[in-house]
């Protein structure tokens, strides 16, 4: 499978707090000293690829850097270091403002979390779907109207609703508007940021099935960001588990959820409520470590990890491959199912 999007060693840092007082900083800047502000390592050295037609899930708790990573690779914000390649073209070097008018802008599109809040409340459904077509495809008049109506009906949005404003639409209809405006410009990669988080289960099913149908129809790749593991399991081929800015585990979705190798993934899977079984009592205690200037030699999960030893304090575990899976834990071997070791 050829990679559609290939990101390598991507990091995104944000300056955190003021550090020393403003006056001290000004003095230092005037005297030509180096600025050393504390930094939040929102995304820290992340690499992965999305193949053509593949659905990749990205899971992790809030604050782990999912959204920052997604915004960086859709080029809504600039990365601090690293490369973002779409096909063979390097996108990371273009400032986000310039990329907004780039010819490849249409190839990566995003569906935001709650279309009720992410769609301009003064735009009708028609205007919301037409906006990217106007800007990126330069469609006008009749051609524009035709295209909007085609996409709307592909997304199952009745045409008589196109003149309505977001607040006049139900949650499911809003979700359809959000999806329609993203696929209107025929992207290769669709990034979905919790598209069903605001929906009831009955509507969620319809939207998920719509997404799957659209994917088959237009041969798109999906990056599906969610914290609902049971949804990720159903929709995704491969899954990436993120913890505090780093990817700690990746692999085929079914395998990762069946036999999680990283202790964090294990806790995550154990915490998902199931209909037909009572949950296990594997619980994470405490709060995550601070993402501000983390010690590069300590495992990010140390302190909350039930298996943590002194080794975890001395060296940061790197991602290691186990077949088609990758795990960043010193003790991943001990979690492998026996069958796997034998083969």
């Amino acid at each position, binding site marked *: 499978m050829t990679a559609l999007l290939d990101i390598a060693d991507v990091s995104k840092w944000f300056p955190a707090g003021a550090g020393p007082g403003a006056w001290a900083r000004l003095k230092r800047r005037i005297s030509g000293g180096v600025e050393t502000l504390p930094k939040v390592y929102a995304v820290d050295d992340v690499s992965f690829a999305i193949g053509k037609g593949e659905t990749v899930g990205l899971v992790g708790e*809030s604050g782990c850097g999912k959204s920052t990573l997604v915004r960086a690779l859709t080029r809504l914000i600039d990365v601090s270091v690293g490369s973002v390649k779409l096909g063979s073209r390097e996108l990371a070097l273009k400032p986000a403002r310039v990329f907004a008018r780039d010819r490849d802008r249409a190839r990566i599109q995003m569906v935001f979390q709650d279309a009720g809040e992410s769609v301009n409340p003064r735009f009708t459904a028609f205007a919301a779907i037409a906006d990217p077509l106007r800007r990126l495809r330069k469609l006008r008049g009749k051609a524009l109207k035709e295209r909007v109506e085609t996409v709307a009906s592909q997304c199952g949005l009745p045409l008589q609703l196109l003149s309505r404003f977001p607040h006049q639409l139900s949650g499911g209809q809003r979700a359809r508007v959000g999806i329609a405006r993203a696929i209107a410009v025929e992207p290769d990669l669709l990034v979905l940021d919790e598209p069903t988080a605001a929906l009831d*289960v009955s509507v969620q*099913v*319809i939207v998920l099935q719509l997404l799957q149908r659209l994917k088959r129809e237009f041969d798109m790749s999906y990056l599906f960001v969610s914290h609902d*593991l049971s949804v990720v*399991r159903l929709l995704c081929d491969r899954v990436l588990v993120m913890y505090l800015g780093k990817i700690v585990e990746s692999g085929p979705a079914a395998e990762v959820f069946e036999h999680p190798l990283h202790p964090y993934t294990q806790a995550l899977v154990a915490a*998902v*409520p199931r*209909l037909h079984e009572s949950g296990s009592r594997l619980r994470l205690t405490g709060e995550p470590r601070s993402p501000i200037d983390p010690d590069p030699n300590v495992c990010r999960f140390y302190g909350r990890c039930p298996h943590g030893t002194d080794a975890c304090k001395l060296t940061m575990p790197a991602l290691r491959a186990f077949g088609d899976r990758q795990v960043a834990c010193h003790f991943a071997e001990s979690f492998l199912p026996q069958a796997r070791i034998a083969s």
Partner: protein
Amino acid sequence: MTAPALSVEGLSVEFRTRSGVVRALENVSLSVAKGETVALVGESGSGKSVTAYAVMGILDPAGRIAAGRAMLGDLDLLSAEPKELAQVRGRKIGMIFQNPRTALNPIRTVGRQIADVLIRHGNVSRRAAPAHAVEMLRAVGITDPARRAKAYPFEMSGGMCQRVMIAIALAAKPSLLIADEPTTGLDVTTQAVIMDLINDLAKELGMATIFITHDLALAGQRSARIVVMHAGHVVENAPTADLFSNPRHPYTAELIAATPDSAASLDELASIPGSLPDLRRADLPPCRYSERCPRKIAACAQPLPLAAPDASHFVACWNPLPEQTLGAPAVSAA
């Protein structure tokens, strides 16, 4: 079963709006025994929160209780004087609200907010309250409680704010706890810890708990009995295991079939056709699900069957799914 800690009987609530009267709840009955956890499950707009607000006496001014009783011991909460209610709220009934960040006072430290409740309801002196508040924070599992007591809600994570809410709700050791979507918006890992905490404390204090959620799987894991609501009606009320293995109401069956956890692939998931009826309509059918229902029959036009007082599995349906033998797929009939 011991005498119920709270029993709601025939509760109906209406809201006056410009475009007509919304009949938000109609003839809602449920009861919770001491030490028992009952889950109230339904989609948004089904009336779960309105039920809780009506019981707490904190309905929006546009809301009116049209009929019903809510007995907490000998006291009818729905007809009680505001003064009496003020004695009950916080002291006998604790409530955990949906979004801890908006429910907490943003300009008061969390320690003081807990102390306020202790002074008002907990027979704790003004002087002793701050120390008690720190103890409460420790009890809900906040590390370094003495320092955290001086923090404002915005300085804490969502999970910690929720712990503070729990501490406030439980400060006066109430006999009834109403938890309105206590973990919506939290991560699954945090959700598991918070639910453990609520369950453990409820067990320790012997509280009756009403747990409101839209997550059927979570309700199944955390409660002994599930009450399913749809458009302001209780459609089914059954012990948890019974409800999952043998859902009788078509809506319950479809809700279970739509839960992502139950399916092996996306194609297996069933969606529920149609949407909630407009509750302002004058011509609402007696069964508010009948217009979406695949099992509709002529009898559905008559008033809904009433609960037998001692029935353990109640279903408000004239044509319920057949009682099933164990092991048969519960959903295929729908």
